């Protein structure tokens, strides 16, 4: 029987600490930043305070349970109320709390000081993916879960980073003060990387600040921690921390790609090219709700296969993808995807799963819609 759980937990901490077997991890990791180390120290301090109080309180209880049992012939004493004892057990815990509050206050104030950052990243939560925008750098992208559906449905073996892997991680340089401006496009999400001790709710319509300064290059993983609907468990956070030089190279490449993407809009696309690209876009962006075969999950997420929209006039179809459907989970993808990707995915939906409309929406159509909106 587990009569001394905190001690038991403490012993386990000691025995399992530092062992390579991650499956039986029992404690928080110190992390990769000064703040996360400070938080870890607070965590361990308050933990050991609790263990000591636990030993005293539970020790007294077990002493009574063993020694003061009636079966040992114990006669009950009749004392009750003792002013000094009662004052002491009110004042001593209070002083312990004050002692604990001091370092906690210091760390908290530090966590809140997001001023003088080197890099600003806008983090936006969507159902169910993260969007990262490097403010002032002309680089932005979505970060989607990369774990194949077969692994989730137990049709393929799960790999080490199961559910904690994405198609495009957030890339950051080591040693720089990075400020995160966290918000959301639909419901509340929460962006968490345990190794940085950064967790901030992403709230639609509001922007929250957080910051970090990462000391070691590496790949750091976290998850959304606020229930945000069906696929809450499937929107991981992955951060790849590179040296300053590697980061600059990466940023340059991304900027070049962004410029290239803009050119794609003016390119003449064939139906086959659009369907091919749309297939990929659909399976990263739309599949969570509308499902792999376009069958949807009615009534929350309608089917696209044979639907009135996907087989009706293409202007209406484009309109819904572009503007979303207010009051439902259908987001306005006009703000999320490039012109090419919107054109591709609409074209794909009109020609997949037996919808066979044979028509296409081109990136230029999308651009025209965008420009019409702007006026």
């Amino acid at each position, binding site marked *: 029987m587990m009569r001394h759980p905190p001690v038991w937990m403490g012993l386990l901490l000691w025995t399992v600490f530092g062992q390579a077997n991650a499956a039986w991890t029992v404690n928080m990791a110190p992390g990769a930043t000064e703040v996360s180390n400070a938080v870890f120290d607070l965590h361990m301090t308050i933990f050991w305070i609790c263990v000591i109080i636990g030993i005293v309180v539970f020790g007294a209880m077990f002493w*009574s349970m063993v020694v003061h049992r009636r079966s040992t012939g*114990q006669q009950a004493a009749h004392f009750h*109320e003792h002013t000094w004892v009662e004052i002491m057990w009110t004042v001593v815990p209070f002083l312990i*709390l004050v002692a604990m509050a001091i370092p906690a206050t210091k760390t908290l104030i530090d*966590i809140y000081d997001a001023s003088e950052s080197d890099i600003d990243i806008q983090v936006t939560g969507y159902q169910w993916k993260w969007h990262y925008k490097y403010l002032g750098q002309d680089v932005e992208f979505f970060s989607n879960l990369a774990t194949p559906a077969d692994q989730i449905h137990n049709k393929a073996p799960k790999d080490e980073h199961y559910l904690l892997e994405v198609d495009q991680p957030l890339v950051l340089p080591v040693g720089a003060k990075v400020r995160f401006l966290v918000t959301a496009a639909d419901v509340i999400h929460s962006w968490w990387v345990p190794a940085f001790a950064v967790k901030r709710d992403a709230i639609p319509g509001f922007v929250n600040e957080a910051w970090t300064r990462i000391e070691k290059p590496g790949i750091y993983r976290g998850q959304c921690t606020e*229930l945000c609907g069906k696929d809450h468990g499937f929107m991981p956070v992955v951060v790849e921390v590179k040296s300053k030089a590697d980061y600059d190279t990466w940023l340059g490449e991304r900027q070049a790609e962004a410029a290239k993407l803009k050119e794609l809009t003016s390119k003449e696309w064939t139906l086959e090219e659009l369907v091919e690209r749309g297939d990929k876009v659909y399976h990263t962006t739309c599949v969570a709700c509308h499902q792999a075969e376009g069958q949807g999950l009615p009534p929350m997420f309608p089917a696209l296969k044979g639907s009135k929209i996907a087989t009706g006039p293409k202007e209406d179809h484009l309109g819904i993808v572009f503007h979303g459907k207010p009051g439902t989970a259908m987001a306005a993808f006009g703000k999320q995807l490039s012109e090419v990707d919107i054109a591709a995915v609409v074209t794909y939906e009109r020609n997949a799963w037996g919808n066979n409309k044979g028509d296409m929406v081109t990136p230029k159509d999308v651009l025209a819609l965008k420009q019409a909106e702007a006026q």
Partner: protein
Amino acid sequence: MSAVIDDHGHGHEHAHGPAKGLMRWVLTTNHKDIGTMYLWFAFIMFLLGGSFAMVIRAELFQPGLQIVEPAFFNQMTTMHGLIMVFGAVMPAFVGLANWMIPLMIGAPDMALPRMNNFSFWLLPAAFLLLVSTLFSPGGGPNFGWTFYAPLSTTYAPASVTFFIFAIHLMGISSIMGAINVIATILNLRAPGMTLMKMPLFVWTWLITAFLLIAVMPVLAGVVTMMLMDIHFGTSFFSAAGGGDPVLFQHVFWFFGHPEVYIMILPAFGAVSSIIPAFSRKPLFGYTSMVYATGAIAFLSFIVWAHHMFVVGIPVVGELFFMYATMLIAVPTGVKVFNWVSTMWEGSLTFETPMLFAIAFVILFTIGGFSGLMLAIAPADFQYHDTYFVVAHFHYVLVPGAIFGIFASAYYWLPKWTGHMYDETLGKLHFWLSFIGMNMAFFPMHFVGLAGMPRRIPDYNLQFADFNMVSSIGAFMFGATQIFFLFIVIKCIRGGAPAPAKPWDGAEGLEWSVPSPAPYHTFQTPPDVK
């Protein structure tokens, strides 16, 4: 008080016993009948909410999706929470209050018996409405028992409207129950039963009832605002219309934190009778227990934002709520120290009620420790919305509320049924519950600290082993409760006859009436010295 003027010895036919047949239960205004119905209703809801927990644990038994889809998983976590909080724990305590408060203060019945009947019968209607949403198109509530907007408004399934009405009905029921408790305690005490002579269960329930009256209207307010946002074009919780999703959380947790104490204070009271009874020694500090309960109730109103440390409240607010939350440890500590001092140098025996009461003190204290850790705002940035929180609140609610209710049930079953329960089976129920509960919830601390978020249907392989242990413990705990049903039915149907006072160390007026307690008691108020 005119309400207690003697009614004894007159020829009212119904004064001698209950009516016959089903209508006895439908029309009854007897506090014992209503108490019994509340307790049975709570137990049925406990099994239903528990079965939802079994679905959750079955899905989490292994990584990958096996049993249910994420959309249904979310309905299970939501309904498990709602049913356990509003359907199991709260009605069970109201049931105990109905049965025991009149017996403890020497009153013939509750002060408002017809309202008492109505407040019970609202509950089956409310839960029928709530559970029926599971069968509606789009499914039932899937936004967590905390139903944060806008997930519960703009993005909610259509059944959310039924959920809102169900919450309204539960709220009306709770408020009426609370008014009844206050009216009874303040007006119907036997002569000589001064406030500071009341058993602690009566005291804690009096304070709980005031908490209920203070916060249930706030809950009704927040769901009404949701209703307006969903159907009447307002934007309380939508930034696009000038509202604020965080407002929802402030209003919800202004209800939600006192609600946590509503679910624990009556258990504090019951345990404060049970530990002295089996220690054969008076409660160490009666007065300080009363004041500590009052202090906890007061603090419960000024700590709500500790549930919201990561929503981005300003640092000064964060500090205030951190300090206020840490302060709760002081009166809670006073209570724990009092229970331990009561046991000290007593003459202890370990019947089932005492086993549950001791486990209550130990495990609730562990939940208190993790609560103290969670109060440290910077550390909460790591704990928040992980399984560490799930471990924390299950450690306060299962051994706190549920074990408190089990301890009370075993303690008073002889009074209710007139039979002793089977002590061997009772102890077996305790040990299986104790082991199952710790096996289910202790590993959750570990996976939480290792980084597993709550409310996810699937997880990385590093969390697999402890999740499997948790699931096995949960199945064990769940199955054990069917066994409890068997013990109770066995006790109702027979067993050694219980004397008026089956526990030699017990104190209180409830032991001065025969077992089982007659249909009408204290028609003449007893004398309290």
